[in-house]
């Protein structure tokens, strides 16, 4: 199997796809307003004509590249290219003000690489074990797992839990449209285009790409200009020590945040930043251009990339929005993410693992060799780019089923996403709902079918109880903590 994996991952065509993917990802990430999720959603249709390995590895390249690319504009413009680099912007721009933009970009590049590699190692170590455990899951355990994933929505909704829940419920309800898989009953609409359900990739392109393009129209005439020269990229010995120490720790933190369904690179970055401030020798320098701050943030966000793939590959549960799109990419290729993937497509799974290492290595090489070229991307005018994004959204949503109806769905989702953004309703929970909703419903009913309608089936095994405890903790853990604090 090892030879097959090596042959597959080091296939020159696949390597080329990955280089293109990483380069495209860095450009997308560098442009403020274009996120990693948007990039992967927009470029997903390009993988429809490829085989599964090429397609997934190219998407991984885009993902890894975009998360890193966000640091370029964060450092040079004080505007994070993606939300994942918001923490990088705090200290990164301070370097630029001191004329040390190159140093900050060098730290960000190597920090991203270290974080990414740590997450790859975790992916490699944890995934097979988790998949083995998941083989023991029956419908009841899968239902409780999906329910736990849905309960996480309340934790990732920020201050307004009700808003996050509303969006998650809307996602779950959208996924119920069409033929019910258990009884074949047609729900909500007998429109022939909706019988097999709403195409969630079209919804994602709408929610993450189209709605952001609408947002960028609001200030379409604003121009981002780079006024700093980028020199001396390679980190010094002192910086290298800081990066290796800080980014490996925050990369590990990011990985575990990535494993939690729905928690993405933006959270990984901020948690990593705060953790690094905690163990830094100079915490007072955070916010004033500290090298460990940049390394922490970038290690944290790139750590999420591998972490998000762990539940996606082993359980079919997306770690973040990009992993959700990748589930779609695998499904289009006729593959179902989950423990059985480790049995039936071992070579593909291990090629993905190795592909993550390669994508991160390509990222660091491109980062150090072509950073000045990537900074030129910042001067691409939004006035031309935004209409092209419209065209890509349209053809991307059409290409999935060659169906114009899906284009309408995408546009509708884009418009809804724009207005949801206006009232500060987060859209990520909708994706969790769209993916985990059907998984929860199907397994809930299958479990009851097997037990003859007895709900005892959900309390039969230790794994069930483990998930029940997780659900209770995810729902009430925060309140319990607050109560304990109040008492103290």
């Amino acid at each position: 199997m090892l030879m097959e994996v090596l042959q597959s991952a080091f296939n020159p065509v696949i390597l080329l796809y990955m280089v293109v993917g990483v380069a495209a990802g860095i450009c997308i990430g560098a442009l403020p307003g274009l996120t990693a999720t948007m990039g992967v959603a927009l470029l997903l249709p390009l993988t429809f004509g490829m085989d599964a390995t090429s397609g997934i590895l190219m998407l991984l390249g885009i993902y890894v590249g975009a998360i890193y690319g966000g640091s370029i504009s964060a450092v040079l413009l004080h505007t994070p290219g993606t939300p994942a680099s918001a923490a990088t912007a705090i200290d990164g721009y301070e370097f630029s003000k001191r004329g040390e933009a190159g140093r900050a970009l060098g730290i960000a590049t190597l920090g991203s690489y270290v974080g990414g590699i740590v997450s790859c190692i975790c992916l490699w170590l944890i995934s097979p074990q988790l998949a083995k455990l998941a083989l023991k899951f029956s419908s009841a355990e899968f239902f409780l797992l999906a329910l736990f994933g849905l309960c996480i929505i309340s934790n990732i909704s920020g201050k307004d839990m009700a808003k996050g829940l509303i969006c998650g419920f809307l996602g779950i309800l959208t996924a119920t449209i069409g033929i019910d898989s258990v009884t074949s009953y047609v729900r909500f609409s007998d429109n022939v285009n909706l019988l097999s359900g709403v195409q969630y990739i079209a919804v994602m392109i709408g929610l993450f790409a189209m709605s952001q393009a609408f947002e960028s129209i609001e200030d379409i005439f604003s121009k981002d200009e780079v006024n700093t020269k980028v020199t001396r990229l390679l980190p010094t010995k002192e910086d290298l020590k800081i990066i290796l120490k800080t980014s490996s720790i925050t990369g590990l933190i990011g990985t575990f945040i990535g494993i939690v369904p729905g928690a993405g690179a933006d959270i990984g970055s901020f948690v990593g930043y705060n953790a690094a401030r905690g163990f830094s020798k100079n915490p007072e320098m955070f916010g004033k251009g500290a090298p460990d701050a940049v390394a922490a943030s970038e290690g944290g966000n790139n750590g999420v990339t591998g972490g998000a793939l762990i539940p996606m590959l082993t359980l079919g549960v997306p770690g973040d929005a990009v992993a959700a799109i990748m589930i779609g990419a695998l499904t289009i290729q006729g593959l179902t993410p989950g423990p059985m993937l480790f049995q039936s497509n071992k070579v593909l799974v291990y090629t993905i693992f190795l592909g993550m290492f390669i994508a991160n290595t390509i990222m660091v090489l491109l980062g150090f060799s072509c950073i000045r070229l990537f900074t030129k991307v910042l001067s691409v005018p939004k006035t031309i780019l935004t209409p092209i994004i419209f065209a890509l959204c349209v053809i991307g949503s059409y290409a999935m089923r060659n169906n114009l109806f899906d284009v309408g769905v995408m546009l509708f989702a884009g418009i809804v996403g724009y207005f949801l953004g206006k009232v500060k309703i987060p859209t990520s929970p909708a994706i969790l709902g769209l993916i985990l909703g059907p998984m929860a419903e199907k397994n809930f009913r299958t479990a009851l079918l097997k037990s003859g309608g007895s709900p005892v089936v959900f309390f039969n095994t230790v794994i069930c109880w483990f998930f029940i405890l997780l659900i209770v903790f995810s729902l009430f853990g925060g309140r319990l903590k607050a109560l304990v604090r109040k008492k103290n």
Partner: protein
Amino acid sequence: MKKGNIISSVIVMAIGIYVLVVCAGYPTAEAYGTGVPGPGLWPMAVAGLMVIAAAALLVKALRTKPEDDTPIVMWTEGTKRVYITMAALVVYVAVLGFLGFLISTAVMLFGFIQWFARKNPLITLLISLVCTGAIYGVFKFLLNVPVDFGLFAI
């Protein structure tokens, strides 16, 4: 934000109640006799929870004091541009099937780029044609996506 929260919670509650009413007419578990809940149970449970969440948002919005409220700006030069863009895109998607990808996309790109970038119309035309051609070429010839639909398709 208060007004926005009230409007959005009312819309969500209306959707939730609609789902509850529709699902009430779906066959129940007894109709199948297997112990499996009917097709309406899951959406009903979710819609019920959604109505509760929307009600919580509504109560919170109504309790918001005017001094704590941050207004949402829905009518500026920027948002007007967004609404016009949305309307234009609805028209574009509506005629896409009839005019085909090439013509409608070239026209869409020309219109938007000319509006936003205000370049020489000839340069805008060139950019629109090149971009449309590139997207068409990649999807049609590299990815084998049948993009040639509509009356004037090539």
